[in-house]
Structure formats: C-alpha cells, structure tokens
C-alpha cells in the first residue's frame, strides 16, 4: 500500500504526571491511571482540583460538565476564604 503519511491511533493516556508530582492521589479506571477526584473536582490535596480527561473522563459532555463543576467549586472556595 503506497502512502506518504501514517497516523497511528494509540491509547489516550491521562496526563497524570503533574498531579502526581503535586501529591494528588491516583486511581485506576479502565486500566489507566487517573487523578482521583470527588464529584466537585477536589483532589486529595486541598486547593488542587482536577477536571476532564486527566480524571478519566472520555465523553465530551462529561468533560465539559466536569470543568464547569470544578470552576464552581473553585469560586466557592475563593469566596469562603
């Protein structure tokens, strides 16, 4: 098969390195390490939130909602302190 470009579609792995270095707890979802977060996006480290693909979400709608939810939780935190 003649071609000049090959596009490999490999697995999409959550980029947890930064969160891990910050000390956030991780968990395994579908065989991949993800950042562990509660329903409002809080990680195990106070003041650090996580949302989107890094928490193991795949579907677009879920990622959008997780960003909104985490932002709301951040607004609340900033207002409280």
């Amino acid at each position: 098969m003649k071609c000049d470009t090959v596009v490999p579609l490999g697995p999409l792995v959550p980029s947890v390195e930064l969160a891990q270095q910050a000390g956030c707890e991780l968990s395994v979802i579908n065989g991949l390490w993800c950042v562990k977060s509660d329903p409002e996006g809080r990680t195990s480290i106070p003041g650090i939130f996580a949302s989107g693909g890094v928490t193991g979400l795949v579907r677009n709608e879920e990622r959008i909602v997780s960003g909104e939810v985490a932002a709301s939780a951040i607004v609340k935190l900033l207002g409280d302190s």
Partner: protein
Amino acid sequence: MADISGRNSFEITLNGKPVRAYTGDTIAAALVREGVHVFSRSTKFHRPRGYYCGSGRCISCVMRVNGIPGVRTCSTPAAPGMVVRTERGFPSSSHDILSVFDHVFRKEFDYQHRFIRPSFMTPLFQMIIRRLASSSQLPDAEGLDFASLERRMCDALIIGRGVSGSVAHARLQGAGVRSLITVDNRMGPENNAPSTAFCFYEDGDGGVLSRNRIHLIKARAVLIATGRNEVGLPLVNGDLPGVMLPEAVHQLALRRIRAGNHAVIVGMSDLKERVERDLRSSGASVVASYREPASVVRVLGRRSVRGVEARELKERPAA
C-alpha cells in the same frame, strides 16, 4: 507579502536556506509546508526523525534556534529572521554521513570500549564520539537569554486549555475571578506564548515555563486539566518521518498545511474522526485504514514514509 487568507509572511532560514513562514506558524509548521521531512536524527543509531507529536512531548523536532540548542520547533512560534539549524547528524540531519556507522556496527557502536587507545588521541576521539552521539553544541553567548525567575500570585491557576480547561476558564471569568492564569502548551491563534507547568514546589507554588522564563505562581486554587496524552503504536519502522500523531496532523490542518498526500490510519481511538476530517480538509486522501495495528507488518521507506506492508488478519476485524 500575504497569503490568500491575508496573513503576512516572512522569511526564516533552515541551515542557511530561506524558508517562508506565515504569521501563526510554528517553526515546524513552516518547515513541513516547505516539504522538510527529516528534522533530526536518533541518538544511538542515526535514524531520521521527523515532525511526530506536534505537541511538545517528544524530541523528534528539536533544532538549534537563534543559537540556542534543543529547541522544540513544534511549539516555538516562527519569527522573522529566525536562524534555524538542524543539530543532529553531520553535515546535516537530512544528509547524515555518520549513518554509515549504523551499517558497519549493526548492533551498536560501543562508545565505552572503542576509541580509547592510544590515549594521546583522546581529544580527537572525543570530538568524533560527540558527533556520533549527536550531542548538541553549547549555546552562542549572544543568543543566551538566561531564564530569569518571576514570582506571581493569583486567585486561580488553570493548567490546560482543552475541553474542560476552557470551560472552567470561561466559568471563572464569568464569576468575576479576575486574577486568573491559564497555562496552555499549544500555540494557536489566541496564544502566541506557549507555557508549560512543570512542577509544584514544596510550598505549593506552581512552576511554569514560558518564553525562556520561569514563573513561580502562588495560587489560592489550582485546576489540573492536563487531559490525555496521545501514545503512538509500536510499528516496525514506526519512527520514520511521515509517521505522525493525531495532534501533529491537527496542528498542520489548523494552518492549512497538508501532512502528506496519501495517508494511512492505523488503530482505533476517539480521535479517528478528527484525524480523517483534518486530513481531508487539508487536501490529503485517506488511502487505507487498519483498525488492528497487527495488520501493518511494517512501515516502508528509508528517509520518509513510502508505504506500509499490510497483511490480512486470520480473525476478521470488526468493521
């Protein structure tokens, strides 16, 4: 001079030869548009390396830019008069005579045990070995812009500007959070200064690198939205220039640059549709799509991709 869409163009040079670039181009994008395939050489064997991840994650595209070695050309904006040189391979990355060594020493050239006697020849040997190991030269004195440190404070620091990061950014802005910093490692129409968050220090400060400068950011809240990382597939000869990840194809398509004329897609992921769209919108055709990576026996070509050798798999892959 401007192109059809009205963008201004300017000149940069690659190994002394002029290359046209347009506003919004990364260095790598300008080079691909010009038909450059070989960006660097691998460290141990002198295998050609091209534009691969397109997102600053690998080191296939590193070159010497304005006297600074090891610059990722895929995430560095092109600027008028930029002096770009390939730094791996001799005399250049596209024509590397040192690759002869790969054929003579098929397993590997053992730098530890060869070239040690007679000892008075050591300085000469070291020069040769450094060339062979394709190590870079030190920065030019005048090109040096030592990373300086800048301390900043903010209410919220968002790391990543993908789907959820962008949504969160808009939501926080809407809620009146003014002191907001968003880190985005991709260069785009809205972002001419790619930045990377590289660590958190013990006191909780985030370290962010942007334009050769380190920012230490103290934030009251941090949102980590670093998303997912594209991983390639272990294909035989899968390191050839012309093999590129979805993000690389996307970054080219955004700038109306064709990754190639005839593309083969291997494997299956959520990004398949976007890859097909990107290829078609930039004028490339998808000549084959193999769902099972094992269908591809090897990628063919010497300096860049010429084709793939495929086989029928015994068990029928799901359509």
